[in-house]
């Protein structure tokens, strides 16, 4: 049994040591931060504030996941070469990658689960209804100002961000049952939704994105979701 699985067993048996609990909290906080960051990447074009924040950040060089490493390297290489027109360049690439200019369903990497899981690549299909039901069960709704559908990748990533934060909160309060339940929800959501369809999205992103920035985002998304899925599976894996 892995170290993390042992920790979760400890959570379940309510015999967690404070140091171990803190380590788990730190790990889940890091996951939340990455989900939040990814959600922002897909939410809309990069603006000056976000670009400044990205430029100042540090990026892990050796995470153990080649896709994550490649993604970070491509993004930070792009950030090392920004110039006066980079914001415009990124906005153009965002549109070309995720919105496109064609009239068929294959002219961009459309960031909606329904497009990738419905037979005719349509919006607002079963996947959207399913994630909508999950958000409602969690007491969440789409921001009224945001006009995309609920199965947009940014919303799904933010849902994971919120679940991670709630897990941290539960662990901090010593509510292990709630933390356990939230971790189960995360694994289920990854299995049924996010991790099931994003490889199709990222494969198309690699086809449409022209900047290292959005190419890197495709690799980072792939690698992080793979790592996170393994992390959650590891927690619940039987000995």
């Amino acid at each position, binding site marked *: 049994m892995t170290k993390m699985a042992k920790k979760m067993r400890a959570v379940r048996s309510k015999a967690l040591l404070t140091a171990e609990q803190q380590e788990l909290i730190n790990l889940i906080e890091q996951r939340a931060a990455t989900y939040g960051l990814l959600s*922002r990447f897909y939410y809309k074009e990069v603006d000056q504030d976000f670009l400044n924040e990205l430029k100042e950040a540090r990026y892990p060089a050796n995470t153990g996941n080649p896709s994550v490493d490649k993604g970070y390297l491509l993004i930070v290489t792009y950030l090392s070469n920004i110039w006066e027109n980079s914001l*415009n360049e990124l906005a153009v690439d965002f549109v070309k990658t995720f919105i496109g200019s064609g009239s068929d369903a294959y002219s961009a990497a459309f960031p909606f689960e329904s497009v990738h899981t419905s037979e005719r690549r349509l919006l607002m299909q079963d996947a959207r209804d399913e994630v909508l039901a999950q958000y409602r069960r969690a007491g*969440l*709704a*789409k921001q009224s100002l945001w006009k995309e559908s609920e199965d947009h990748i940014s919303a799904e990533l933010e849902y994971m961000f919120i679940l991670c934060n709630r897990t941290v909160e539960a662990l901090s309060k010593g509510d292990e049952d709630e933390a356990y339940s939230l971790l189960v929800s995360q694994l289920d959501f990854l299995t049924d939704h996010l991790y099931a369809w994003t490889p199709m999205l990222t494969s198309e992103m690699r086809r449409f994105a022209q900047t290292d920035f959005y190419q890197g985002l495709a690799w980072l998304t792939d690698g992080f979701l793979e790592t996170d899925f393994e992390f959650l599976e590891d927690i619940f894996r039987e000995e």
Partner: protein
Amino acid sequence: MLTGLKGEDPLDLLDADDEHESLNDPLLQDEGAADPATVVDTVTELFKSMPTYHKLLLSILESCIEKQRISVVIESIDEVLRNNFSVYKAARFCELLEQAGALLKVTEEGTQYADAKAQPILVEEDGLEYFKANEPPEAFWVTTEEGRRFLEADDPLERFRDNLENERVYHPIFTQILLLCSNEKGRSIEELGDALDDDPILQKPRMYARRFVEILERCDALTWDKGWKTTGIGQLGLEEIERYDKNG
């Protein structure tokens, strides 16, 4: 640590009694060894597609005959745009010229900027390795050979003559505008409208002074400097109109 979610999150918490109803709610081109003749055509096409920015684009090419820091070029374009609202950012004009092959981004040494890509910095913190973004090498714009050729071939008076040929019936309007704008302060578009919009020539088809001001601006005969003012080309243009009308 980044969260990336400063009030920019698509999801929101549902109110307890608000269960379900709150849910209602110019392309980059590959670089390559292009045929110089094709490049000149592309530059010509760019200028044709942006007639209102003709003068600005030319001034960029002119200012970059000797390589010029990008920041300096941007600053001078911003200065021009201060009096001329544009949906384009200053850097975009340079990028369009670069894509057309009239400008080239180079390093201080004059080598192609694309070959001088900065690599991220590897740092070690708490025994772990991280990448941090590097500072990009300083970039300069320089006008290419094709850009220079285009610049040298440009003749605003020739553009003025072309317009005369196409707008014979409106020669008196051009003349009046150029004369009205020959004063020191220049004229506002309202003043020109008051003076010309009732002119019988402009009644059928209905036209307004603004159209002719735009045409004159495109051939550098008028310039905006807190008022529309006739330029040197405009003064020569007045003589051209007189000569043209005299000779038929």
